[in-house]
């Protein structure tokens, strides 16, 4: 069997559970008769599950960091070394506090957790910046994305995988983008004014949304507008008004970066007509400049 686009699509349609019973049985017959096809189906399933598992691992690492910053994870005194087998189980140094008590006891702890998370997500950008020695830390909050500083060049032994004619932002729009793009938006915790009884689920949602916002900013900073857009679109659907506003603004910026000027205008118009929108003035100014062009 020679693997081609058609067979590849058939394999994935099968793995997605698509097709009528007859079609699926027919494909299963082919798998039985063709060991190479069977091998490829297994390989594709393995890759798909493996990549998803990597994503899940990343998510659990984030959960760990989040719970750790909230003081919700217990710590243990290690009483064993690799050369010793203990007779007594390890004892906890600290026990996790019951979370209902944790949340109810002190709103201030939540503020700290929120700030901790915020700092954590900000710190997360460090390795990213550090991995690009040509990038210096921004002295100003409206700095031009790194990928914007020079013409992107294809990665070295790059296979013939260059996308077909992606739009590129023109220099004058690039300047506008740079003036408006901030890596460090100001995000206040919606829980800081609460006194008691903050719902942990809501905190988790807020954290997930802020993480998406920072991820989007990192992607946009790296010049990956399409992927950034996906993250910002999640944020603009947030349950939290402030985050929604950030999401809307960054969606407009990502569209600008993608040279989708019509959609950028439309987005900016919506923001500029929204009273009390955090980015109302900025949107008005940017829209006026784009309209002049």
């Amino acid at each position, binding site marked *: 069997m020679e693997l081609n*686009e058609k067979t*590849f699509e058939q394999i994935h349609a099968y793995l997605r559970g698509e097709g009528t019973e007859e079609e699926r049985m027919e494909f299963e017959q082919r798998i039985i008769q063709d060991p190479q096809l069977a091998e490829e189906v297994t390989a594709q399933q393995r890759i798909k599950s*493996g990549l998803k598992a990597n994503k899940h691992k990343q998510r659990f690492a984030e959960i760990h960091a989040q719970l750790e910053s909230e003081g919700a994870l217990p710590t243990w005194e290690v009483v064993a070394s690799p050369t010793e087998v203990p007779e007594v189980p390890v004892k906890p140094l600290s026990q996790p506090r019951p979370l209902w008590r944790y949340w109810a006891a002190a709103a201030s702890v939540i503020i700290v957790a929120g700030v901790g998370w915020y700092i954590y997500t900000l710190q997360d950008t460090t390795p990213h910046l550090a991995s690009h020695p040509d990038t210096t830390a921004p002295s100003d909050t409206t700095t031009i994305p790194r990928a914007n500083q020079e013409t992107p060049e294809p990665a070295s032994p790059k296979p013939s*995988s*260059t*996308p077909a004619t992606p739009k590129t932002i023109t220099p004058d729009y690039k300047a506008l983008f740079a003036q408006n793009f901030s890596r460090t938006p100001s995000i206040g915790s919606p829980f800081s004014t609460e006194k008691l009884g903050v719902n942990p689920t809501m905190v988790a949602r807020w954290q997930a949304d802020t993480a998406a916002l920072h991820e989007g900013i990192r992607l946009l900073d790296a010049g990956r507008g399409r992927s950034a857009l996906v993250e910002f679109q999640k944020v603009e659907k947030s349950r939290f008004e402030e985050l929604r506003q950030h999401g809307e603004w960054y969606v407009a910026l990502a569209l600008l970066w993608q040279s989708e000027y019509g959609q950028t205008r439309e987005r900016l118009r919506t923001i500029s007509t929204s009273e009390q929108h955090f980015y109302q003035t900025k949107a008005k100014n940017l829209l006026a400049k784009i309209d002049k062009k």
Partner: protein
Amino acid sequence: MPLPNSNQHNYPNEAQFYEDLQAERPEAFNHLYLQTYQKCLPFALSKGSSQDEAKDLLQECLAIFVEKIRNGTYAFRADTKITTYFYSIYINQWKKAFEHKTKRAEVRLQTQYESPQDDAEETFKESISSTPFRVTLQDEDGHQEDISLPDMIDLADYDDSERSWIFRKLQRAMKLLSEDCQEVLTWFYIEDWSLKNIAQALNITEESATVKRFRCAKYLKEKFRLA
């Protein structure tokens, strides 16, 4: 026996917990992590693993586990607690990782560990040779939980080399690809985007997206040799 003080989100029943895990709800993931962390970490630490090793192993086993929930390979059974099922996987994986290290002479296998009196070792032997097997886990309050696994659990699904392939080799191969290909394959394999969506995102035709997706998938397989 559930831990008395570890629930961030209390689930009225296991079926609801399973449903939320399937839907990948953040509170379900948090709950799963907290519950399993409190049981699994003391176990691995007491056997000499470092904090990082124990934590990495936990996160990798959890990642594979939730993927199995997502793709339907793990089927919920009302008579087996989800976390109980998971502990067995973790312990089994810890043992495999330990054996792997031992083979590579990174640690010495201790006489005491090899002793037939060692409960954990006995458990491990059983976990491989027969089902159901039993293991006793102890939490920080000294409460013990006996775990007995039903016959249906296929521990062979979780072999150490597969875990290594997923989190080392596959990950490295992916990183060797161009950014475009990484993006396309992320959309396709992880986010389950349709060809139409990929084509729109790349601003190309569906035909071109078909070719690009296929080529990138091919490159990924080729990179396994280098990863």
